[in-house]
């Protein structure tokens, strides 16, 4: 075990994957000598050479197109998009190509080796174009797996599982936690299961569901609720799609209440999908409507970021309202 922050855990996972399999390649904007703007790929070029860890031109559609071809060839590309806000030039290559390679060819070809990493989310005073949470756009595309870790231990285990998944994975890293989240991380090679939510705290009265940096927010809200005598069960969804309906539904069958929280805007956010599915699965067991605590239906702001974000107090209020319904 070593103490690492989330970035070091990502770097350690990439190092582990590259050491274990010579087909693993890391590339993107500034990832070479510089190690990426956040330093997630530090020292990888030194260790594995310029052929396996390299800078690309500033062209997101090219990075993902190139990665699709590499993965189809049998390599295992881990492509970095510098900020999730800048993933949209690559949208066509992701949703029309990565996601559909296997389906459209009847498994003659696939890009299962592909992982796309991107820092995402707010809370770093990043303003408009450095804070978005675009997971719902990709959740609407069958064939993609979207994964979000919440801490260093999860980050290493989930990223290694993503790299070795037989399906293309988009791996969104909560950048607010890059240096803020520190914890014990096993030094050895390990994987955590994709498509499986994790119950991180058992409770009786209400289920709280979140992913990424929002898990910590929900945990803080749960502490406030516990002081008010409300017992909260907390679930980290971890994989946004295909998502773990069973774990969430069985929790709600027990507690009868659900609050889902994410940073992305409300309308069409992934909480909407969860709420629809859970109400159809658990309708007769629900004690109150499923609540959503999310960002506003606006672009992401800079100065009023705290007001925009679904903070612990907003989540706590939603818990109270759900309990008092």
């Amino acid at each position, binding site marked *: 075990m070593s103490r690492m922050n989330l970035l070091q855990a990502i770097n350690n996972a990439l190092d582990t994957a590259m050491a274990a399999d010579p087909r693993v390649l890391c590339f993107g904007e500034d990832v070479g000598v510089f190690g990426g703007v956040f330093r997630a790929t530090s020292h990888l070029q030194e260790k594995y050479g310029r052929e396996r860890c390299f800078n690309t031109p500033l062209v997101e559609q090219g990075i993902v197109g190139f990665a699709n071809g590499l993965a189809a060839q049998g390599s295992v590309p881990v492509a970095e998009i510098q900020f999730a806000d800048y993933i949209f030039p690559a949208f066509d290559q992701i949703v029309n190509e990565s996601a559909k390679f*296997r389906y459209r060819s009847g498994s003659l070809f696939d890009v299962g080796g592909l992982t796309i990493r991107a820092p995402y989310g707010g809370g770093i005073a990043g303003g408009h174009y450095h804070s978005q949470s675009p997971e719902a756009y990709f959740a609407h595309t069958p064939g993609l797996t979207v994964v979000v870790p919440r801490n260093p231990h999860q980050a290493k285990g989930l990223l290694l599982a993503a790299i070795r998944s037989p399906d293309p994975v988009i791996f969104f890293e909560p950048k607010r936690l890059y240096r803020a989240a520190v914890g014990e991380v096993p030094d050895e090679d390990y994987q955590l299961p994709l498509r499986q939510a994790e119950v991180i705290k058992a409770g009786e009265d209400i289920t709280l569901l979140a992913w990424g940096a929002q898990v910590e927010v929900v945990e803080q809200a749960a502490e406030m609720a516990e002081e008010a005598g409300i017992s909260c069960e907390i679930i980290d969804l971890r994989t946004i799609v295909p998502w773990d309906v069973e774990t969430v539904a069985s929790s709600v069958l027990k507690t009868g209440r659900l609050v889902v929280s994410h940073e992305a805007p409300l309308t069409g956010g992934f909480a909407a999908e969860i709420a629809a599915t859970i109400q159809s699965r658990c309708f007769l067991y629900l004690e109150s409507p499923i609540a959503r605590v999310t960002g506003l239906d606006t672009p992401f702001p800079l100065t009023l970021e705290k007001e925009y974000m679904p903070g612990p107090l907003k989540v706590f209020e939603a818990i109270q309202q759900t309990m008092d319904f």
Partner: protein
Amino acid sequence: MKTTRSTAKPVHKPVFANGDDIQIPVFTLLKPDGTLYAGAGQSSLERDTARRLYRAMLYTRVLDERMMAAQRQGRLSFYMQCTGEEAAVVGATAALDDADMIMAQYREQGALAYRGFTTEDFMDQLFGNQGDPAHGRQMPIHYGSRELYYLTISSPLATQIPQATGYAYGQKLAGQGHCTLAIFGEGAASEGDFHAALNMASVHKVPVIFLCRNNGYAISTPVTEQFAGDGVAARAFGYRMQSIRVDGNDALAVYEATREARRLAVEENEPVLIEAMTYRLAAHSSSDDPSGYRSKKEEEAWRKKDPLRRLQRWLLDRGWWEEDEERELVESLRREVLDTMKRAEKRRPPALETLVTDVYAEVPPALREQFDELVAHVRRHPEAYPRSAPWLDADQADDALRDDTSAHAGEARP
């Protein structure tokens, strides 16, 4: 040679350049009548390859004529012809190793014909029946073959071009001396993916050949409304990439140009751009009618430059081909296409389960549930689903068989 910054001499008055002073010549060997230009050296094309090349061009022409007619008869939902561009496609394919990857746009069935895609393979895809490896998911002409190193066609334009760069980078690392050929039209060369692909290929010294079929039209948009300036070949200069413009109706010239391009790609890791000047003799697709946007006269002028007649004459002159042989071959190919089409039309549709397979490596539980609901619904209303209901139980037997073999599928990564 390799410079990252200009080493040109400074000047002290503003000098603008737009490249108009660079005229890229067209490399051509065969005159329209099929005889060699004076000064054209010996072709490196050998007898067997030449015959295989010509046969694939003939096959493609026969297939296109037959299937276009079938589409007009309402037997096929859609079709796209290679007609007029056979030399550009087949000539380039013949210059490759059969295990070099081809990532095509959509009308390059000549490449598959050259590599031995069978008439049954073509028909099963065109009719989207049980024999189509992609289970009738895509429109007709979206062929693919792993065995023949031909990436399954994707409708979105130009997406295969940066993928070819990535694939070829992997080939370079694997060190097995292969390259990738990306084929696309001049219209696709306007897409961002094209520029991304060339730039990345040249920066990373990737063994990839970009073959632009400059066929005059992107659906109804003529090249004059597609780009200003000297075509697509010149764009390579901005990326410091080797570039050649070739007569795309001259199979010999395309073959020689691609052969040298392949050498540069594989031996020197130099990406190459080839612009094949050709003409789309047929409509863009069966849904298009070129009479609305171009003249018969223009088409006739190009018909006189038919790439098939040109290569045929050269082969006849060398004694490598006989007119009688061709008559019999064409006759038998027509029969083969017609008979195989009739069989393909009658084959069963893909199994219902193929609606949900291949989305992920394994069907996720939520999707399995959606499928089970669908099956229950089809069972309740079989009369409403004549394509799938009659085969429901037979499909389950097929699935049981497939489950037996799919245990090994995960090991099949190249």
